């Protein structure tokens, strides 16, 4: 079973004294697990090596704080160092005289065109007047793609077809921006390999024409070990000012971010988190650190929950919890809302301590369960939903028949519901419920 780093560290330290200083042997034991976690997250081998050395230096001889176990102390040091390495979030530089030029560069398929549109929308929301520039003349239909996105979002697009050279397009776009008072010019460039000398020279020429205040490397969060050479090459040729990590809505751990940060030293400015134009987020080092270490991402979970849960309903639910009048109907309502957040296995992955557990449950099984539960509750009368106590043998048979399930499954549901009620009472008394028991 995949364990979270905290569990692994705990395991490694269980044999050791509970307090005192971290000695060399303890630290090395723990760092072995950290190394594996980072490599599994696609952090580059060399970056991992450097990172481990740094943590080791700090950890050996460190005093274990009174309130922590050695494992927790170790985890704390790793986490802090990781956050330090990931750096602070930074905004788009809009200082100085407009128009400000933002160039988006990167490998093929990293998400530059989509990001250009997202960034345009983001800057407009901040009161800017952006101009998108279609400077990718090589990928078939890339110009149309940006034009369509611009039209959909009502953002101005500067395009000159596919026969004008990109550096010239940049120069023309800049002139247009000055004449028509566009404050920000976002240049979508062609995807190119970092080892393609000819195209890297073209990029340098574009830089010369456009005098950008930002050159952002758009990189796929799923990138593997090669992220270091990609970032390094682009940085050496044109001097990056920041990174945008795309496709963060998948299940990649995103270790490439750490690799690219450590070879370029430039800040991470945004994360792409979906296909919709609004799916561009700021970067939070603590969240990304948790994700890279495989410790779950509770904050994203909270945000996801906030998206689907109606605050008014949440208040009502809270009231019900306090008065312990939580019924099967409320239970179903909650399940429906949870379902809106996505497949249960994904949600579980975001909960620290549960991540990894999801992998043990057959794909789609939890979601099939939810469908069954909904069917069973729908087959109950309002009175039954309100007070499951009245459900006897013949009612169970009727519910099973009505929902296409078995009496055993109805029994299971009623049992689970009693569990939840018990948990709710614990919560209302201020105790942490045993979440795991719900899924067993």
């Amino acid at each position: 079973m995949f364990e979270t780093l905290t569990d692994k560290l705990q395991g490694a330290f269980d044999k050791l004294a509970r307090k005192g200083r971290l000695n060399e042997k303890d630290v090395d034991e723990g760092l072995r697990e950290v190394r594996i976690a980072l490599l599994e997250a696609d952090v580059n081998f060399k970056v991992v090596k450097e990172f481990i050395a740094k943590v080791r230096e700090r950890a050996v001889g460190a005093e274990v704080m009174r309130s922590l176990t050695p494992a927790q102390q170790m985890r704390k040091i790793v986490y802090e160092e990781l956050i330090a390495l990931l750096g602070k979030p930074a905004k788009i530089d809009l200082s100085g005289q407009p128009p400000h030029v933002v160039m988006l560069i990167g490998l093929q398929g990293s998400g530059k065109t989509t990001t250009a549109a997202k960034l345009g929308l983001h800057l407009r929301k901040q009161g800017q007047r952006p101009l998108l520039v279609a400077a990718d003349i090589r990928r078939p239909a890339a110009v149309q793609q940006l034009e369509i996105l611009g039209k959909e979002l009502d953002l101005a697009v500067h395009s000159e077809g596919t026969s004008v050279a990109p550096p010239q397009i940049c120069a023309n776009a800049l002139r247009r921006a000055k004449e028509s008072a566009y404050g920000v010019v976002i240049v979508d460039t062609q995807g190119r390999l970092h080892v393609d000398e000819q195209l890297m020279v073209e990029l340098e020429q574009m830089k010369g024409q456009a005098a950008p205040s930002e050159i952002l490397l758009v990189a796929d969060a799923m990138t593997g070990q090669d992220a270091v050479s990609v970032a390094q090459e682009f940085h050496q040729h044109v001097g990056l000012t920041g990174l945008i990590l795309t496709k963060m809505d998948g299940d990649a751990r995103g270790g490439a971010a750490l690799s690219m940060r450590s070879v370029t030293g430039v800040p991470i400015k945004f994360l792409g988190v979906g296909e919709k134009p609004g799916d561009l987020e700021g970067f939070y080092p603590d969240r990304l650190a948790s994700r890279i270490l495989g410790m779950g991402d509770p904050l994203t979970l909270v945000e996801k929950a906030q998206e689907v849960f109606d605050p008014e309903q949440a208040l009502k639910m809270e009231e019900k919890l306090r008065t312990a009048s939580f019924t099967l109907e409320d239970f179903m309502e909650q399940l429906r809302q949870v379902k809106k957040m996505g497949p249960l296995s994904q949600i579980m992955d975001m909960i620290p301590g549960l991540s990894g557990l999801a992998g043990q449950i057959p794909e789609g099984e939890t979601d099939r369960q939810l469908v069954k539960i909904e069917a069973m509750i729908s087959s109950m009368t309002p009175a039954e939903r309100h007070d499951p106590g009245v459900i006897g043998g013949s009612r169970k048979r009727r519910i099973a028949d009505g929902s296409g399930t078995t009496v055993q499954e109805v029994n299971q549901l009623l049992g689970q519901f009693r569990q939840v009620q018990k948990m709710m009472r614990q919560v209302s008394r201020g105790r942490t419920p045993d979440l795991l028991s719900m899924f067993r």
Partner: protein
Amino acid sequence: MIGRGKNIEQSLSRTRRSFFGRIGGLFSQTDLDERVWEELEELLIQADVGVTTTVDLVQAVRDESGAQGLRTPSHVVEAVQQRLLAVLGNASSPGRSQEGLWVILVVGVNGSGKTTGIAKLAKYHQRHGRRVLLAAGDTFRAAAADQLKVWARMLGTDVVAHQPGSDPGAVVYDAIKASQARDADTLIVDTAGRLHTQYNLMQELRKIHRVIKKQMADAPQETLLVLDATTGQNALSQARYFKDAVDVNGVFLAKLDGTAKGGIVFAIASELGIPIRYVGTGEDVDDVAEFDPERFVAGLFAE
């Protein structure tokens, strides 16, 4: 559009050079000491083979090194190569033997290189004397159908496309009918890029697969997952989800012309039994080749 064709040899030589530059020490040593094993591990991990697969593999070779009489680093490299080849050999490919329409469904995450890959596959099949038709099943991404049409014009083939935002299932339905009416023998179906964790989009993909199956029980004969060679460990997760949804039976490894090695394919072959079928190595339609395990493995180590 400017085609800048690069042949496979060239791109592989780039792979070799960068590898050699990094691990030159491994071959200059004559003794089999701890450093050799460490460098071997480093080489494989940096090729995205994955830490678990790497450690297991190196340990296995190490365990047998005494019995097998492995005394020099090059003996060890050879033994590792044999094991890697065995992993790739485990995953078998569907052979094209039957008559009639051959349907290829192409799937993958956003930006993996599906549309370019399809153009290359179309050219590949044309070279084998087949009549190819394309289906613009990506009705979501802006200008995706246009992109396919540009390629089709270059290749002199037709595209079946509907309005943006329309049902991809309907596109596929029409495309199969059109293939039969126009006597095409190879239909390549493009689909919208989707992250494997997006539940609803994966359901949509299942539906496209069902629509094809309903019309032709033995189709799609090939379901190819297009994988970006620069992808790290997440590729295994991608392959797992896509296989579960639409029974992927081959990988198209795209963008192997950079410095990335695509080492994750070993885990995909060994854990999921999915073979690597094609390799894409550039931006030109001709930059495609059938996967050659020996060259791929040698590329990881070549001096």
